């Protein structure tokens, strides 16, 4: 039988092939440590590693590693690059299994691990100069979980209002002004899809407006730590915020797709020249506008602090960002080495190189003051100004739950699946239920 022979050969080849590949590729062996050396493994996502597709990022991350090796000959670094579909799950796994010593994590994921006591308190290792150099809110936020400083803020991002100066000569100070301005733009450019864009579909939305909520007088927790973010006065603040967006959407000033958009949802509009202003991370200036638009079009863009609400303490921005933390472990030598790397990775030199390459915003005031790039870039100048009055979202186990419940409520209200009252009631039910089940 000819077919039989063919298929047998094929099968044999398949098995052979499978065998060869298994023999050839395996797990990466840990970097060999010479006697007297310790190896510190640190976990980063691929887009912030030496394996990123962008050459400038590769160079910047490599420079941090190389300078650490030069300063600490007895410590070897091993970069563990994550391509997991959920970076958070990967971080939790690696910390729990003890397979990495240092992690770089997004701030909403910090509270759970800090609460479980996974991270070293790095405060005793900080010099006075360092303590004065970081933005003070970085310490406050990180210590708000259980009083200990479980890591150091490596980079931040602050919400900014981006606008096209040819359509909007000055930035609005309040949402009321914004509505007037965008109405005019809409009237003179009826083709324009988005006089204003804010991603309102995910927790991004809450980051956009958290500063406004607090400026209005909102207090998310009562004195006992119970979430009251949707009770009494607080609820009225949210209603005002929600209604403003709904009004703008109904008037065609915000595209309806914003109701489900993540922050990056603005990029197609930006690239097709269909947006006059938007709220996003400070890094959108360097990373999207300058990098992707034609130079003359990019030159039209400017950034300012986000608008506030009439009769309140003005627009206040909210910052997020990523944190370097070291895992608690038994081996004191390794422990010390890991903390050393955390300090190094958030040092002046590292913050300057890496943040510039990544388009992020540094957390050390000295970088803003001493580096010409941060002095000259108009978006970074705006970010620096916004950071001066910025608040940070509370950083405890409840805050991600709160943010996602309120964001869902906003999205439901804007997408027409619930009334304002229904959406907020539902959000409050979820928040209170999760709180009682902590």
């Amino acid at each position: 039988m000819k077919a039989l022979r063919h298929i047998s050969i094929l099968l044999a080849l398949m098995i052979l092939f499978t065998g060869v590949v298994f023999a050839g590729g395996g797990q990466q062996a840990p970097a060999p440590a010479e006697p007297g050396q310790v190896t510190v493994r640190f976990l980063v996502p691929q887009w912030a590693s030496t394996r990123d597709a962008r050459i400038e990022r590769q160079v910047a991350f490599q420079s941090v590693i190389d300078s650490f090796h030069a300063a600490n000959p007895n410590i070897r670094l091993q970069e563990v690059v994550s391509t997991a579909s959920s970076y958070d799950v990967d971080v939790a796994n690696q910390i729990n299994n003890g397979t990495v010593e240092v992690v770089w994590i997004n701030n909403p994921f910090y509270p759970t691990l800090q609460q479980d006591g996974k991270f070293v308190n790095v405060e005793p290792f900080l010099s006075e100069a360092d303590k004065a150099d970081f933005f003070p809110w970085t310490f406050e936020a990180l210590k708000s979980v259980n009083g200990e400083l479980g890591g150091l803020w490596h980079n931040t991002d602050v919400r900014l209002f981006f606008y096209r100066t040819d359509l909007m000569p000055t930035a609005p100070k309040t949402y009321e002004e914004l509505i007037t301005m965008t109405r005019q733009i809409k009237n003179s450019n009826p083709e324009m899809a988005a006089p204003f864009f804010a991603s309102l579909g995910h927790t991004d939305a809450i980051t956009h407006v958290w500063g406004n909520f607090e400026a209005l007088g909102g207090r998310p927790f009562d004195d006992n730590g119970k979430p009251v973010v949707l009770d009494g006065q607080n609820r009225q603040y949210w209603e005002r915020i929600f209604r403003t967006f709904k009004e703008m959407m109904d008037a065609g000033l915000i595209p309806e797709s914003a109701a489900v958009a993540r922050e990056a949802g603005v990029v197609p509009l930006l690239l097709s020249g269909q947006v006059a202003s938007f709220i996003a991370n400070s890094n959108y200036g360097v990373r999207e506008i300058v990098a992707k638009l034609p130079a003359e079009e990019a030159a039209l863009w400017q950034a300012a602090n986000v608008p506030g609400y009439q009769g309140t303490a003005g627009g206040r921005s909210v910052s997020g960002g990523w944190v370097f933390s070291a895992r608690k472990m038994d081996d004191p030598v390794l422990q010390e080495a890991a903390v050393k790397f955390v300090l190094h990775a958030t040092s002046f030199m590292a913050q300057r190189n890496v943040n510039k390459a990544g388009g992020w915003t540094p957390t050390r005031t000295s970088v803003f003051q001493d580096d010409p790039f941060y002095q000259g870039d108009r978006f970074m100048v705006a970010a620096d100004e916004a950071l001066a009055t910025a608040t940070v979202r509370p950083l405890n186990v409840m805050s991600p739950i709160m943010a996602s419940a309120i964001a869902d409520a906003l999205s439901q209200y804007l997408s027409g699946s619930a009334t304002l009252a229904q959406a907020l009631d539902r959000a409050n039910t979820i928040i209170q239920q999760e709180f009682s089940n902590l």
Partner: protein
Amino acid sequence: MQSIVQPSIQPLNRQSKIERFIHGPWPFILPALFGLVFMRAFPFVWQIWLSFTNMRLGRPGEFIGLQNYRVLFQNPVFLSSIAYTGVFMVATVAGQMFFGLLLALLLEEDFKGKAVYRMTFLIPWIVSGFVAGILWQLMLVETRFGMFNALLDLMNVPPVRWLSNARNAQMSVIMVYIWKGLGFSLLLMSGGLKIIPQEMIESADIDGASYLQKLRLIKLPMMKDIISVNIIFSVIAALNSYETVFVLTGGGPGGATSIIALVMFNTAFGDGRNQLGRGSAIGVVMFVVTLIFVIIYVRKTNFAKGYGKP
């Protein structure tokens, strides 16, 4: 079934138990059965235990009884996802059945190029759920630059909020799943039509029956079994859909399209708290519902007598 093999084996009662075992069927079956039980059946059982604990990633769970279920059935997110999953299941299955039958009847007709047509009808079904999600996300972009809205723009119809309006997003997800799963039901329906004896149709023709009469009185009753099998398969597939909706809407807007599997994933691996215990409870709910349909199927096909020959 008549066994022909056994008598030719030497007298069984003289062999030891071990020898009998070796000459029996088990050496052939056991390897597969081991894999099956260990990797597939055991997790079902383990999951039931996990659902009674408060396990989180990195925290060994303690037994908390029915707490997870109690929380779930008070949780608005879970409850609304159950409601939408129900609607989604009924609508996709009905759509797949209807259009599947329609196309199967079409392919029964006598015209050229049928083989090519059938191949094109099957393409969405061979496309992975992940790619289907990407595909439709790009087709349904909501500014004038989305394919569909650009088409509407040509006809002077204002753009439709395909994915940002809750109702529309729910409909869009259902449409995409009908698009994706239609090929399967088309195949089954075609198979069902082929079984119908040609003589029955011909005698109906002689009696002067119209097309619809033939369909209603002969074809559909003859296909009853295959249609119910088809429905069960589609229901199970719909209940366990995940990746297309994950890519397409991620459950949005505001959880309007979050089907149950998505909630399970989000609880266990998505929201930063990684509550494996509560996620397992959702998995158990899905398992039980699926099992009910599987049991109906097993009975329907009268599997116990002659494994699956209807």
